[in-house]
Protein backbone atom coordinates (compact mmCIF):
# COMPACT_ATOMS: atom_id res chain seq x y z
CA UNK A 1 0.00 0.00 0.00
CA UNK A 2 1.30 3.41 -0.83
CA UNK A 3 1.91 5.63 2.15
CA UNK A 4 -0.54 8.48 2.24
CA UNK A 5 0.71 11.99 2.87
CA UNK A 6 -0.73 13.52 5.92
CA UNK A 7 -3.25 16.16 5.30
CA UNK A 8 -1.73 19.46 6.52
CA UNK A 9 -4.83 20.43 8.46
CA UNK A 10 -5.56 17.28 10.38
CA UNK A 11 -6.96 17.35 13.91
CA UNK A 12 -6.50 13.70 14.48
CA UNK A 13 -7.54 10.21 13.54
CA UNK A 14 -10.63 8.66 14.99
CA UNK A 15 -11.68 5.07 15.50
CA UNK A 16 -15.28 4.12 16.08
CA UNK A 17 -16.34 1.24 18.33
CA UNK A 18 -19.62 -0.41 19.11
CA UNK A 19 -19.25 -1.24 22.75
CA UNK A 20 -17.89 0.53 25.77
CA UNK A 21 -15.79 -2.48 26.65
CA UNK A 22 -13.99 -2.33 23.33
CA UNK A 23 -13.35 1.35 23.88
CA UNK A 24 -11.91 0.82 27.35
CA UNK A 25 -9.66 -1.88 25.92
CA UNK A 26 -8.63 0.40 23.09
CA UNK A 27 -8.00 3.30 25.43
CA UNK A 28 -5.63 1.37 27.66
CA UNK A 29 -3.77 0.01 24.64
CA UNK A 30 -3.47 3.45 23.11
CA UNK A 31 -2.07 4.68 26.40
CA UNK A 32 0.45 1.84 26.69
CA UNK A 33 1.38 2.50 23.06
CA UNK A 34 2.71 5.76 24.36
CA UNK A 35 0.15 8.17 22.95
CA UNK A 36 -0.50 11.17 25.15
CA UNK A 37 -2.86 13.41 23.22
CA UNK A 38 -5.88 11.28 22.64
CA UNK A 39 -9.45 11.37 23.88
CA UNK A 40 -12.50 9.13 24.00
CA UNK A 41 -16.10 10.07 23.25
CA UNK A 42 -19.05 8.18 24.67
CA UNK A 43 -22.83 8.65 24.78
CA UNK A 44 -22.83 8.17 28.55
CA UNK A 45 -20.25 8.18 31.32
CA UNK A 46 -18.38 4.91 30.86
CA UNK A 47 -16.88 3.81 34.13
CA UNK A 48 -13.26 2.74 34.08
CA UNK A 49 -12.60 4.64 30.89
CA UNK A 50 -10.71 7.55 32.40
CA UNK A 51 -8.68 5.13 34.52
CA UNK A 52 -7.81 3.27 31.34
CA UNK A 53 -6.80 6.56 29.77
CA UNK A 54 -4.81 7.40 32.85
CA UNK A 55 -6.64 10.64 33.56
CA UNK A 56 -6.94 11.70 37.17
CA UNK A 57 -8.06 15.05 38.55
CA UNK A 58 -10.14 16.63 41.31
CA UNK A 59 -10.30 20.28 40.22
CA UNK A 60 -14.09 20.46 40.39
CA UNK A 61 -14.42 19.27 44.01
CA UNK A 62 -11.85 21.77 45.19
CA UNK A 63 -13.57 24.59 43.34
CA UNK A 64 -16.86 23.65 44.94
CA UNK A 65 -15.31 23.56 48.38
CA UNK A 66 -13.71 26.98 48.01
CA UNK A 67 -16.87 28.54 46.58
CA UNK A 68 -18.93 27.11 49.41
CA UNK A 69 -16.55 28.56 51.93
CA UNK A 70 -16.67 31.96 50.28
CA UNK A 71 -20.45 31.84 50.10
CA UNK A 72 -20.84 31.03 53.77
CA UNK A 73 -18.43 33.72 54.87
CA UNK A 74 -19.89 36.29 52.50
CA UNK A 75 -23.43 35.92 53.77
CA UNK A 76 -22.55 35.65 57.41
CA UNK A 77 -20.38 38.71 56.92
CA UNK A 78 -23.20 40.55 55.22
CA UNK A 79 -25.61 39.84 58.04
CA UNK A 80 -23.15 40.83 60.73
CA UNK A 81 -22.21 43.99 58.87
CA UNK A 82 -25.84 45.01 58.43
CA UNK A 83 -27.18 44.16 61.86
CA UNK A 84 -24.18 45.02 63.97
CA UNK A 85 -22.11 47.63 62.18
CA UNK A 86 -24.14 49.51 59.58
CA UNK A 87 -27.53 49.93 61.27
CA UNK A 88 -27.76 48.21 64.64
CA UNK A 89 -31.40 48.14 65.69
CA UNK A 90 -32.95 46.83 68.86
CA UNK A 91 -35.10 44.09 67.45
CA UNK A 92 -37.31 42.55 70.08
CA UNK A 93 -34.64 43.06 72.72
CA UNK A 94 -32.30 40.66 70.96
CA UNK A 95 -28.59 41.24 70.97
CA UNK A 96 -27.23 42.94 67.88
CA UNK A 97 -24.94 40.01 67.16
CA UNK A 98 -27.57 37.34 67.66
CA UNK A 99 -25.61 34.90 65.55
CA UNK A 100 -27.84 31.84 65.85
CA UNK A 101 -30.41 33.76 63.83
CA UNK A 102 -27.84 34.23 61.09
CA UNK A 103 -27.09 30.54 60.57
CA UNK A 104 -29.86 29.64 58.09
CA UNK A 105 -28.97 32.34 55.61
CA UNK A 106 -25.29 31.60 56.00
CA UNK A 107 -26.00 28.02 55.09
CA UNK A 108 -28.09 28.95 52.08
CA UNK A 109 -25.31 31.22 50.88
CA UNK A 110 -22.85 28.37 51.15
CA UNK A 111 -25.05 26.10 49.08
CA UNK A 112 -25.77 28.72 46.46
CA UNK A 113 -22.16 29.66 45.85
CA UNK A 114 -21.04 26.02 45.91
CA UNK A 115 -23.69 25.06 43.38
CA UNK A 116 -22.58 27.77 41.02
CA UNK A 117 -19.02 26.66 41.62
CA UNK A 118 -19.89 23.15 40.57
CA UNK A 119 -21.80 24.15 37.48
CA UNK A 120 -19.55 26.89 36.19
CA UNK A 121 -16.45 25.00 37.23
CA UNK A 122 -17.49 21.95 35.28
CA UNK A 123 -18.13 23.97 32.13
CA UNK A 124 -15.02 26.09 32.46
CA UNK A 125 -12.63 23.18 32.97
CA UNK A 126 -14.26 21.43 30.05
CA UNK A 127 -13.68 24.47 27.92
CA UNK A 128 -17.36 24.76 27.21
CA UNK A 129 -19.21 26.35 25.57
CA UNK A 130 -17.61 25.05 22.41
CA UNK A 131 -20.37 24.73 19.85
CA UNK A 132 -17.68 24.13 17.21
CA UNK A 133 -15.25 21.29 17.52
CA UNK A 134 -13.24 19.43 14.86
CA UNK A 135 -14.57 16.05 15.91
CA UNK A 136 -18.00 17.15 14.76
CA UNK A 137 -16.58 17.17 11.25
CA UNK A 138 -16.76 13.40 11.22
CA UNK A 139 -20.28 12.52 10.06
CA UNK A 140 -20.45 9.31 12.02
CA UNK A 141 -19.61 11.23 15.16
CA UNK A 142 -23.27 12.19 15.34
CA UNK A 143 -23.78 8.75 16.88
CA UNK A 144 -21.33 9.54 19.66
CA UNK A 145 -24.29 10.87 21.64
CA UNK A 146 -26.43 7.88 20.85
CA UNK A 147 -24.81 4.48 20.69
CA UNK A 148 -21.25 4.62 19.34
CA UNK A 149 -17.91 4.95 21.14
CA UNK A 150 -15.00 6.87 19.62
CA UNK A 151 -11.31 7.13 20.24
CA UNK A 152 -9.43 9.98 18.63
CA UNK A 153 -5.64 10.34 18.57
CA UNK A 154 -4.81 13.98 17.97
CA UNK A 155 -2.20 15.23 15.56
CA UNK A 156 -0.77 17.35 18.36
CA UNK A 157 0.60 14.20 19.87
CA UNK A 158 4.46 14.20 19.60
CA UNK A 159 4.61 10.74 18.07
CA UNK A 160 1.67 11.20 15.78
CA UNK A 161 2.54 9.71 12.46
CA UNK A 162 -0.23 9.32 10.01
CA UNK A 163 0.10 5.78 8.79
CA UNK A 164 1.54 4.52 12.06
CA UNK A 165 -1.49 5.77 13.89
CA UNK A 166 -3.68 4.28 11.17
CA UNK A 167 -2.10 0.91 11.57
CA UNK A 168 -2.30 1.14 15.30
CA UNK A 169 -5.99 1.98 15.18
CA UNK A 170 -6.52 -0.84 12.77
CA UNK A 171 -5.07 -3.15 15.36
CA UNK A 172 -7.84 -2.10 17.75
CA UNK A 173 -10.50 -3.58 15.45
CA UNK A 174 -12.75 -0.52 15.20
CA UNK A 175 -15.90 -0.45 13.12
CA UNK A 176 -14.53 2.42 11.15
CA UNK A 177 -11.54 4.73 11.06
CA UNK A 178 -11.77 8.29 9.85
CA UNK A 179 -9.53 11.31 9.66
CA UNK A 180 -10.69 14.31 11.57
CA UNK A 181 -10.31 17.60 9.77
CA UNK A 182 -8.90 20.38 11.87
Amino acid at each position, binding site marked *: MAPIETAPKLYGMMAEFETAEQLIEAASRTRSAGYKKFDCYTPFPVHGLTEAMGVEEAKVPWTVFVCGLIGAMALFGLQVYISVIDYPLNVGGRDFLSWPYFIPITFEGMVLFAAFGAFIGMLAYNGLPA*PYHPVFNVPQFARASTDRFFLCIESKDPNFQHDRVYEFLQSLNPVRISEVEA
Partner: protein
Amino acid sequence: MPQVFKRHHNTVARATIVGGLLALVGLVLAGSNITRSPWMTRAGEPLDQPVPFSHKHHYAELGIDCRYCHWSVTKQAHAGVPSTELCMTCHSQVWTNSPLLQPVRDSYNNNAPLVWNKVNDLPEFVYFNHSAHVNKGISCATCHQGIEKMHLTAKSQPFSMWWCLDCHRNPEKHIRPSEEVFNMYYQTPRNPEEMKAMLDKYQIPYDPNNIPRNQLELGRLLVKHYNIHKEQLSDCSICHR
Protein backbone atom coordinates in the same frame (compact mmCIF):
# COMPACT_ATOMS: atom_id res chain seq x y z
CA MET B 1 -22.71 17.75 5.75
CA PRO B 2 -20.67 20.51 7.42
CA GLN B 3 -21.41 21.36 11.05
CA VAL B 4 -23.61 24.38 11.66
CA PHE B 5 -21.20 26.20 13.93
CA LYS B 6 -17.93 27.71 12.72
CA ARG B 7 -14.77 27.97 14.74
CA HIS B 8 -15.32 31.65 15.63
CA HIS B 9 -18.64 30.81 17.25
CA ASN B 10 -16.74 29.46 20.22
CA THR B 11 -15.29 32.89 20.86
CA VAL B 12 -18.70 34.49 20.35
CA ALA B 13 -20.26 32.13 22.85
CA ARG B 14 -17.70 32.76 25.55
CA ALA B 15 -17.75 36.50 24.95
CA THR B 16 -21.53 36.52 25.33
CA ILE B 17 -21.36 34.78 28.68
CA VAL B 18 -18.62 36.97 30.15
CA GLY B 19 -20.35 40.05 28.76
CA GLY B 20 -23.65 39.04 30.29
CA LEU B 21 -22.16 38.62 33.74
CA LEU B 22 -20.41 41.98 33.55
CA ALA B 23 -23.62 43.65 32.40
CA LEU B 24 -25.42 42.24 35.42
CA VAL B 25 -22.87 43.68 37.85
CA GLY B 26 -22.95 46.96 35.98
CA LEU B 27 -26.72 47.16 36.26
CA VAL B 28 -26.70 46.81 40.04
CA LEU B 29 -23.99 49.43 40.46
CA ALA B 30 -25.68 51.81 38.05
CA GLY B 31 -29.01 51.40 39.83
CA SER B 32 -27.67 52.13 43.26
CA ASN B 33 -25.77 55.16 41.98
CA ILE B 34 -28.46 56.67 39.81
CA THR B 35 -30.91 56.77 42.70
CA ARG B 36 -28.40 58.81 44.62
CA SER B 37 -27.61 61.15 41.75
CA PRO B 38 -28.93 64.69 41.46
CA TRP B 39 -30.66 63.57 38.29
CA MET B 40 -32.94 61.54 40.56
CA THR B 41 -32.99 63.78 43.61
CA ARG B 42 -33.42 66.96 41.55
CA ALA B 43 -30.83 68.66 43.69
CA GLY B 44 -29.63 71.90 42.14
CA GLU B 45 -32.66 72.42 39.89
CA PRO B 46 -34.33 75.76 40.58
CA LEU B 47 -38.12 75.68 40.25
CA ASP B 48 -39.97 78.62 38.76
CA GLN B 49 -41.67 80.76 41.33
CA PRO B 50 -44.34 83.45 41.08
CA VAL B 51 -41.68 85.92 42.13
CA PRO B 52 -38.01 85.37 41.31
CA PHE B 53 -36.98 85.78 44.93
CA SER B 54 -33.20 85.83 45.40
CA HIS B 55 -31.75 84.59 48.66
CA LYS B 56 -28.38 85.77 47.42
CA HIS B 57 -29.64 89.30 47.13
CA HIS B 58 -31.51 89.43 50.40
CA TYR B 59 -29.09 87.50 52.57
CA ALA B 60 -25.70 88.02 51.02
CA GLU B 61 -26.07 91.44 49.52
CA LEU B 62 -28.54 93.11 51.90
CA GLY B 63 -27.46 91.06 54.90
CA ILE B 64 -30.99 90.35 56.14
CA ASP B 65 -30.93 87.64 58.79
CA CYS B 66 -32.61 84.32 57.99
CA ARG B 67 -34.88 84.80 60.98
CA TYR B 68 -36.32 88.01 59.69
CA CYS B 69 -38.47 86.10 57.21
CA HIS B 70 -38.26 82.58 58.65
CA TRP B 71 -39.07 83.87 62.09
CA SER B 72 -40.53 80.66 63.45
CA VAL B 73 -37.48 78.56 62.68
CA THR B 74 -36.10 78.64 66.21
CA LYS B 75 -39.43 77.83 67.87
CA GLN B 76 -41.33 75.66 65.46
CA ALA B 77 -41.11 72.57 63.35
CA HIS B 78 -41.62 74.63 60.22
CA ALA B 79 -39.30 77.42 59.17
CA GLY B 80 -42.40 78.98 57.65
CA VAL B 81 -42.83 80.86 54.42
CA PRO B 82 -43.10 84.57 55.17
CA SER B 83 -46.51 86.14 54.68
CA THR B 84 -46.94 88.78 52.03
CA GLU B 85 -47.34 91.25 54.86
CA LEU B 86 -43.76 90.58 55.80
CA CYS B 87 -42.50 91.17 52.29
CA MET B 88 -44.40 94.43 52.17
CA THR B 89 -42.74 95.71 55.32
CA CYS B 90 -39.86 96.57 53.02
CA HIS B 91 -41.42 96.50 49.62
CA SER B 92 -43.99 99.09 50.48
CA GLN B 93 -40.93 101.35 50.63
CA VAL B 94 -38.47 99.94 48.09
CA TRP B 95 -39.11 98.70 44.56
CA THR B 96 -42.66 99.86 45.10
CA ASN B 97 -43.46 99.66 41.43
CA SER B 98 -41.13 96.99 40.15
CA PRO B 99 -43.13 94.79 37.78
CA LEU B 100 -41.40 91.75 39.25
CA LEU B 101 -43.11 92.40 42.56
CA GLN B 102 -46.56 92.83 41.06
CA PRO B 103 -47.74 89.41 42.35
CA VAL B 104 -46.66 90.37 45.85
CA ARG B 105 -48.59 93.61 45.76
CA ASP B 106 -51.63 91.85 44.32
CA SER B 107 -51.48 89.24 47.03
CA TYR B 108 -51.29 91.96 49.63
CA ASN B 109 -54.07 94.06 48.22
CA ASN B 110 -56.46 91.20 47.47
CA ASN B 111 -55.47 89.34 50.60
CA ALA B 112 -54.84 86.31 48.37
CA PRO B 113 -52.01 83.93 49.10
CA LEU B 114 -48.88 83.65 46.99
CA VAL B 115 -48.48 80.13 45.69
CA TRP B 116 -44.81 79.16 45.69
CA ASN B 117 -43.36 75.91 44.50
CA LYS B 118 -41.96 73.78 47.24
CA VAL B 119 -38.23 73.40 46.82
CA ASN B 120 -37.14 71.44 49.87
CA ASP B 121 -39.80 68.77 50.15
CA LEU B 122 -39.86 65.76 52.43
CA PRO B 123 -42.21 62.78 52.21
CA GLU B 124 -45.35 63.06 54.35
CA PHE B 125 -44.15 60.45 56.76
CA VAL B 126 -40.98 62.31 57.65
CA TYR B 127 -41.29 64.74 60.55
CA PHE B 128 -38.53 67.28 60.43
CA ASN B 129 -38.33 69.89 63.14
CA HIS B 130 -36.28 73.00 62.40
CA SER B 131 -36.16 74.21 65.97
CA ALA B 132 -34.71 70.92 67.18
CA HIS B 133 -31.80 71.41 64.80
CA VAL B 134 -31.00 75.11 64.85
CA ASN B 135 -31.10 75.18 68.62
CA LYS B 136 -28.57 72.38 68.82
CA GLY B 137 -25.94 73.85 66.55
CA ILE B 138 -27.00 72.43 63.21
CA SER B 139 -26.78 75.32 60.79
CA CYS B 140 -29.05 76.31 57.93
CA ALA B 141 -25.99 75.81 55.81
CA THR B 142 -25.92 72.11 56.63
CA CYS B 143 -29.09 71.37 54.70
CA HIS B 144 -29.51 74.53 52.62
CA GLN B 145 -25.86 74.80 51.77
CA GLY B 146 -25.06 77.56 49.31
CA ILE B 147 -28.44 79.20 49.63
CA GLU B 148 -26.59 82.46 50.10
CA LYS B 149 -25.23 82.09 46.58
CA MET B 150 -28.54 81.32 44.93
CA HIS B 151 -30.39 83.82 42.85
CA LEU B 152 -33.04 81.25 42.11
CA THR B 153 -33.61 78.83 44.95
CA ALA B 154 -32.87 75.17 44.43
CA LYS B 155 -32.32 72.43 46.93
CA SER B 156 -28.66 71.72 47.35
CA GLN B 157 -28.95 68.35 49.08
CA PRO B 158 -30.59 65.07 48.08
CA PHE B 159 -32.81 64.98 51.20
CA SER B 160 -32.84 61.23 51.05
CA MET B 161 -32.80 58.97 54.04
CA TRP B 162 -29.18 57.96 53.80
CA TRP B 163 -28.25 61.60 53.62
CA CYS B 164 -30.19 62.42 56.79
CA LEU B 165 -28.81 59.36 58.54
CA ASP B 166 -25.29 60.28 57.61
CA CYS B 167 -25.53 63.33 59.85
CA HIS B 168 -27.76 61.70 62.46
CA ARG B 169 -25.15 59.01 62.95
CA ASN B 170 -22.26 61.37 63.36
CA PRO B 171 -23.41 64.92 64.00
CA GLU B 172 -19.85 65.85 64.94
CA LYS B 173 -19.13 66.31 61.28
CA HIS B 174 -21.58 69.19 60.97
CA ILE B 175 -22.34 70.67 64.39
CA ARG B 176 -21.22 74.18 65.27
CA PRO B 177 -21.82 76.66 68.09
CA SER B 178 -25.52 77.51 68.01
CA GLU B 179 -24.64 81.18 67.82
CA GLU B 180 -23.08 80.51 64.43
CA VAL B 181 -26.06 78.63 63.09
CA PHE B 182 -27.38 81.47 60.94
CA ASN B 183 -23.96 82.44 59.67
CA MET B 184 -23.62 81.07 56.17
CA TYR B 185 -19.94 81.96 56.02
CA TYR B 186 -18.90 80.15 59.18
CA GLN B 187 -15.67 78.19 58.93
CA THR B 188 -14.41 75.76 61.52
CA PRO B 189 -11.49 77.52 63.19
CA ARG B 190 -8.35 76.17 61.65
CA ASN B 191 -5.84 76.79 64.41
CA PRO B 192 -6.00 76.38 68.21
CA GLU B 193 -5.99 80.13 68.79
CA GLU B 194 -9.07 80.78 66.71
CA MET B 195 -10.69 77.71 68.19
CA LYS B 196 -9.93 78.87 71.71
CA ALA B 197 -11.14 82.35 70.89
CA MET B 198 -14.41 81.03 69.56
CA LEU B 199 -15.02 78.64 72.47
CA ASP B 200 -14.36 81.44 74.93
CA LYS B 201 -16.54 83.80 73.00
CA TYR B 202 -19.50 81.46 73.33
CA GLN B 203 -18.56 80.24 76.80
CA ILE B 204 -18.34 76.65 75.72
CA PRO B 205 -16.49 74.74 78.45
CA TYR B 206 -13.44 72.90 77.18
CA ASP B 207 -10.28 71.33 78.48
CA PRO B 208 -7.52 73.93 77.90
CA ASN B 209 -4.89 71.17 77.70
CA ASN B 210 -6.38 69.70 74.59
CA ILE B 211 -8.23 72.27 72.57
CA PRO B 212 -10.07 70.65 69.68
CA ARG B 213 -7.92 70.79 66.59
CA ASN B 214 -10.48 70.12 63.88
CA GLN B 215 -14.20 69.90 63.17
CA LEU B 216 -14.44 66.34 64.47
CA GLU B 217 -12.91 67.14 67.84
CA LEU B 218 -14.91 70.34 68.09
CA GLY B 219 -17.93 68.31 67.11
CA ARG B 220 -17.44 65.82 69.91
CA LEU B 221 -17.08 68.67 72.36
CA LEU B 222 -20.29 70.35 71.18
CA VAL B 223 -22.27 67.12 71.02
CA LYS B 224 -21.51 66.64 74.68
CA HIS B 225 -22.08 70.32 75.40
CA TYR B 226 -25.49 70.38 73.75
CA ASN B 227 -26.38 67.11 75.45
CA ILE B 228 -27.10 65.33 72.18
CA HIS B 229 -27.58 61.61 72.47
CA LYS B 230 -26.08 60.29 69.27
CA GLU B 231 -27.21 56.67 69.45
CA GLN B 232 -30.77 57.85 69.79
CA LEU B 233 -30.63 59.96 66.65
CA SER B 234 -30.98 56.98 64.33
CA ASP B 235 -34.08 55.67 66.10
CA CYS B 236 -36.94 55.29 63.67
CA SER B 237 -39.24 57.22 65.97
CA ILE B 238 -37.02 60.28 65.75
CA CYS B 239 -38.24 61.06 62.22
CA HIS B 240 -41.22 58.77 61.65
CA ARG B 241 -44.47 58.67 63.60
